[in-house]
């Protein structure tokens, strides 16, 4: 049992996964209470202006919305732990069918964006640290900070106006469907991807630059400089590995944002992701769908935070062997 020390990574992960599950359960409770607290229920929300008392009553009876809330929550939780996500109340489709392909779409967009944005941010951050306080550094900082300061939809509309309407290079709507090949899909999501990349790069790039600059004042960097090593080598091989921990945390937060926070970009580019589904389901009070998407988002956060912690421990021997 030597591997299972109370402060080993495995123990930490187990503990964190356990806490994560508790978090998810609390979140499911909060989501349920939150949706219940909204005025009106599914029957009224779906029928809207055309609701009459009789049809609303028929709706409620069929969907068992007339049962007390704790009974409905218990029924949902019971099915959920057995792996049954239930059916959408609004159109009776299995929640899994509604969510799975949308979540795949969301991950596809987030993944492609991350593949572009993370290396770009890190390289730019390293370069900015390397040429600190030069014109180059200032230009990068200004450019990335301006893209992050504009609202996403603004960046999106500017890109559409330039790259889609003025010069017809890329489609203005990212209409992906199962009839398309991988490359066609990649082409279709170019603009949303670029928008998101511009929005998330700044955070990661600034954090990389700050962390490296922070390390640059340490004695061992001074030693490396005194040995006469090249500046690039000092930064990439000596400073950067020591700056990884905070960078990983910022990257994890940004990745989580790419999964859960992109509903505006989805709307502007008509991209069928999970965000739009969640918004629609909340406005229709479709609790099973809200629960499932909310939990997926929460689980994404829990997982990415866990991953960030594990990676920063792995990357930092001091955290690996705490005294």
């Amino acid at each position, binding site marked *: 049992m030597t591997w299972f020390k109370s402060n080993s990574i495995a123990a930490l992960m187990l503990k964190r996964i356990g806490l994560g599950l508790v978090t998810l359960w609390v979140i499911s409770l909060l989501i349920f209470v939150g949706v219940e607290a909204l005025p009106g229920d599914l029957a009224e929300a*779906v*029928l809207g202006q055309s609701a009459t008392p009789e049809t609303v009553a028929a709706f409620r009876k069929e969907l068992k919305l007339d049962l007390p809330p704790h009974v409905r929550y218990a029924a949902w939780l019971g099915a959920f732990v057995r792996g049954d996500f239930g059916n959408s109340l609004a159109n009776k489709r299995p929640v899994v069918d*509604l969510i799975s392909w949308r979540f795949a779409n969301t991950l596809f967009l987030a993944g492609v964006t991350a593949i572009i944005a993370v290396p770009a941010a890190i390289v730019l951050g390293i370069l900015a640290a390397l040429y600190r306080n030069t014109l180059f550094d200032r230009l990068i900082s200004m450019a990335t900070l301006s893209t992050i300061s504009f609202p996403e939809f603004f960046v999106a509309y500017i890109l559409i106006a330039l790259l889609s309407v003025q010069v017809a290079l890329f*489609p203005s709507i990212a209409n992906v469907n199962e009839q398309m090949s991988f490359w066609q899909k990649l082409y279709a999501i170019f603009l949303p991807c670029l928008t998101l990349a511009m929005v998330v790069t700044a955070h990661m790039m600034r954090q990389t630059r700050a962390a490296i600059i922070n390390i640059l004042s340490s004695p061992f960097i001074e030693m490396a400089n005194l040995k006469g090593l090249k500046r690039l080598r000092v930064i990439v091989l000596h400073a950067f590995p020591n700056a990884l921990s905070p960078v990983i945390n910022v990257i994890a937060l940004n990745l989580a944002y790419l999964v859960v926070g992109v509903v505006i970009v989805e709307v502007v580019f008509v991209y069928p992701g999970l965000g739009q589904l969640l918004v629609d389901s909340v406005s229709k009070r479709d609790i099973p769908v809200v629960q499932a998407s909310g939990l997926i988002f929460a689980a994404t956060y829990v997982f990415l935070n866990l991953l960030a912690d594990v990676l920063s421990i792995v990357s930092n021997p001091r955290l690996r062997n705490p005294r």
Partner: protein
Amino acid sequence: MKRGNEVERLLLEGKLSRREFMARMSAMGLAAAVSPLLSSMPAMAAGPKRGGRLRLGLNGGATSDTLDPGIQLAMMPQTLVYGTLANSLVEVDADGRPVPELAESWEASPDAKKWIFKLRKGVEFHNGKTMDADDVIYSLNWHRKKGTKSAAKPLVESIAGMTKTGKYTLTFELEEGNADFPYTLSDYHLVVGPKETDLAKGVFTGGYMIKTFEPGVRAFAVRNPNYFKSDRAWFDEVEILGINDVNARTNALKTGQIDVMNRCDLKTVHLFKRMPGVQVMRQDGFKHFTFAMRTDTAPYDNNDVRLALKYAVDREQLVKTILRGYGRVGNDHPISVANRYHADELPQRSFDPDKAKFHLKKAGLPGTTFKFHAAEVAFKGAVDAGVLYKEQAAKAGITIDVVREPNDGYWNNVWMKKPFCAVFWAGRATEDMMFSTAYAKGVAWNDTFWDHKRFNELLTAARAELDEKKRRGMYVEMQRIVRDEGGVVVPMFSADLSAAGDKIGHGKLAANWELDGFRAPERWWFKS
């Protein structure tokens, strides 16, 4: 040529007759320079062609949509189910008249209480079954059966009984006479599917068959080779994309990713019209906005208060600012110029601060503050309309307090609850449907809680009246009653604006619903 282009555009939008057009063009010395654009006019078109994939980008789709014909609440499923996949017994044509669709013909008893419908023979469902009277009965009962969730229940409630009097003959017994019964059967909910099946599966008789349907996102349908209409459903495939953001729709049309969009942005449509390769289409239909007052609640139970609030609206200004000119002023009743019995002879009510002041004084309530509730979901620009109304009424010394309500839950928590609020009405194809939906005593959507004895009597009498002239007289009187004693301010009727690439051909647009009565996929075609 700029002016010449402008005149051409007026002609294409139907604002000029051909004769006026030729006169204006020759006045400019341009008669010979008429562009080939005009060959798109139906009268000169070479006739519809088959083929192509029609791509519609529509506002009004949600991930909670369904193909259930009873729950068709937004533009995307309505266009998909009624306009693409299915047919009703009766269709409303471009001139607003009921014409046979799945029915071949019909006749009414003299009291309009009994209707005999002969069905078209040899109509096949997408699953290969041949349609007969049993399917029609089953489909209508979908909305009538006990515990139905259908929003069309109030429409079919008046049917006391349906009997199959032959394989292709159906007899309807109505609770009371209804001369507009064929219109009722043209409703977009009342489509026909095969008996003993789940109608939410999307199997109907229409010109296209559903292949994929992802609610709120995309629907894809292919042409039905056995469609019973040979002169309709010209496209090979129809793709409907849910695009709720108006800028995304506009860009998608500009960049050729879709062929047709609905609901243009009123703020930018004048720029859009100037784009080459784009046609903007305007339909003046039944859609109107109302300011509803609860006539069972003080102070709105006093007709002088209601008249004061009716005289305190500057309708022209509202049409100009809120609708950017794409609409018409209302006359405090819900009957549109597109309706058959619109009362042209009623004088138009206009902004009159003095009369408003007079009526408020007569009611003995000067200095009252009226709380007007509005939200953007009531109609686009409702809150702005409220603020304008407040300014206008201030000129008559009337204080209106605009309360901005949340969009979420507006129809459950504000509409029919607060005594004075903004309301959207899609309108109805017939006077009777409109009045009996929202103005008759005690009906579910009577949002003014209005009860007028003479009006209710006329409503029943006019419904069963088969004599056109007498009927018209009754409806005119009813419009007058609503205008002078009803609980609504009807400041404006809103036009529908849609746009398409100029390759799309179409005939005269039906005004009953957006996009040619939801029927663009069935009625339109690619010119080349």
